[in-house]
């Protein structure tokens, strides 16, 4: 089911804004698929091990690996672990640093001791110091320290928000049981969040990451919207009206959510507080109204309504006024998510038997299908905070798995693995 590919020339793609100090990559490598965008070459040198035994050496290796991976996954850099003679790339920046491990390994003392991690971003080869950070992670915190530093480097050199500390929550399982899981954006650190023997779907992060709202089912079979505290895993009920309690999206201020409730006869969009009280009903019609998503400023929202007979996207403001239809192509459009920059909306469109991901400007122009027939079904898009990466679910291998798309480069990587279906991902902010 091949889509006619809209030529890249028609795309309005903006190179990431790069401060003057970071421009001038000397070599642009052309890939065999999409065009490569100019990336900044950067060295990530081996860290000096100043003290400590095997633990310190392992820490040094791990931190270097994570830094290289983070900088590469951002799409903004060409990282390398050493400056090989004859290399055609001229590095302008480097990361170097040192590790001081505990003098006695955990095997001896029986407990984990912190490692001191000193990381520097310097110009190259001049070694002018641009950024210095010092961390004292326990072994299980070393990845996080590396991610933190990589974020700082990305923000300083590229002027873009980094996604190195972000995570993706999703629903995994089949049949009677689907549980929430969370994974680091680089596929590490998979953790299970629920084990309540029912279906748990459609999670949504609060802006500060402290809570995840999601739809689940109570003993009676009735739906409810629940909130999970990410610091301790505790779950409480947000709201459970008769019918659907579906598709939550947190407001950027973290103090309210959009949700679709059908207790008045058919699903409508409401603004509610985290304690379950209703602030305002935003839609009034006998149609199905679902899948709300705030604009980044919280002034407007995009949602799905089938008032014309099949689901299409509409925009209204936070009072429910100013409704305008957004999608006129395709009979079935749903699952809209507004990009963090406010400029684009990604959604799912169903043609025939299969669903694909589409990105377009928030004005409705420049509609571009991201996934072609090779993806079989591609659904449930969610933006990363950098507005460049998008996670979605696809059953191209026969079972739904999560994939990350670099929307600028049109490259993809698989995020989750294994035999169980993974659906409805949400990328933390």
């Amino acid at each position: 089911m091949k889509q006619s590919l809209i030529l890249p020339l028609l795309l309005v793609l903006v190179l990431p804004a790069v401060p003057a100090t970071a421009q001038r990559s000397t070599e642009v490598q052309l890939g065999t698929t999409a065009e490569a965008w100019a990336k900044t070459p950067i060295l990530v040198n081996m860290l000096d091990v100043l003290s400590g035994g095997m633990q310190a050496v392992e820490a040094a290796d791990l931190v270097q690996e994570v830094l290289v991976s983070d900088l590469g996954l951002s799409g903004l850099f060409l990282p390398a672990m050493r400056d090989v003679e004859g290399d055609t790339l001229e590095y302008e920046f480097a990361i170097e640093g040192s590790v001081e491990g505990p003098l006695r390994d955990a095997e001896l003392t029986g407990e984990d001791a912190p490692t001191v991690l000193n990381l520097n971003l310097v110009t190259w080869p001049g070694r002018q110091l641009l950024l210095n950070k010092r961390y004292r992670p326990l072994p299980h915190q070393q990845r996080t320290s590396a991610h933190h530093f990589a974020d700082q480097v990305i923000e300083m050199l590229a002027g873009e928000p980094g996604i190195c500390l972000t995570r993706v929550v999703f629903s995994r399982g089949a049949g009677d049981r689907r549980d929430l899981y969370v994974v680091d954006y680089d596929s590490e650190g998979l953790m299970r969040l629920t084990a309540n023997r029912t279906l748990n779907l459609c999670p949504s992060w609060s802006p500060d990451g402290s809570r995840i709202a999601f739809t689940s089912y109570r003993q009676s079979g009735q739906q409810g919207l629940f909130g999970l505290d990410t610091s301790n895993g505790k779950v409480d009920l947000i709201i459970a009206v008769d019918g659907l309690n579906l598709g939550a999206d947190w407001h950027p201020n973290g103090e309210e959510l959009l949700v679709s409730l059908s207790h008045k006869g058919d699903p409508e969009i409401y603004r509610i507080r985290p304690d379950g009280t209703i602030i305002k009903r935003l839609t009034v019609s006998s149609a199905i109204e679902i899948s709300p998503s705030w604009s980044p400023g919280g002034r407007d929202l995009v949602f799905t309504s089938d008032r014309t007979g099949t689901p299409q996207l509409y925009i209204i403001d936070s009072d429910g006024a100013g409704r305008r239809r957004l999608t006129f192509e395709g009979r079935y459009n749903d699952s809209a998510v507004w990009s963090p920059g406010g400029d684009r909306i990604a959604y799912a469109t169903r043609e025939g038997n299969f669903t694909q991901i589409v990105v377009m400007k928030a004005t409705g122009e420049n509609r571009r299908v991201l996934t072609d027939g090779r993806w079989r079904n591609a659904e449930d898009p969610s933006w990363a905070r950098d507005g460049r990466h998008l996670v979605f679910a696809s059953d191209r291998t026969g079972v739904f798995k999560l994939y990350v798309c670099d929307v600028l480069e049109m490259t993809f990587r698989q995020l989750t693995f294994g035999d169980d279906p993974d659906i409805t991902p949400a990328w933390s902010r």
Partner: protein
Amino acid sequence: MFNRKILFALAIIMMLGLLTACGGKKDVEDDPTAAGDAGETTETLPVEPVAEPEPVPEVITPDYAAMAPAEYGVEDVFFAFDQYELDDVTMGVLSRNARVLRETDVTVLVSGHCDERGTIEYNLALGEKRAKAVKDYLVSLGVPAGRLQITSYGESKPFAMGSSEAAWAQNRRAHFERP
């Protein structure tokens, strides 16, 4: 020498005696208590133990609340792609279901389901429309609304796996279950 006639007479007498004995009668010629009862016996015969008569069975009500509705005749119904209307076959099944439900006081959960095509959220909404259509029809046939709970699982709890038309048709349904 035996006189055959005497033997014959004796045989007759014996037979008579047997007959009267079989008739359960003793000689009652001179029983003073039998006065006035022509031929009726008042003797107490050895009573053979006679079994108690079988009690008439009570009507036992099945414990519907513990059974799956399909076990007591409440069947699932199916839908066309992207539709929540009830066709003639479905209405026929629901009429039968209504009869069973009216005769019991059980509460059932009607859950709406969809095939895998389309999005998770829209299928949850479509599943709810299917469950509601079924509930509304059953209520119109006299089943009390309070005994019909509804929910929707959308495409997320399929009955048949795979991507064939047959599997999809199996999954587009309103399912009756214990709440």
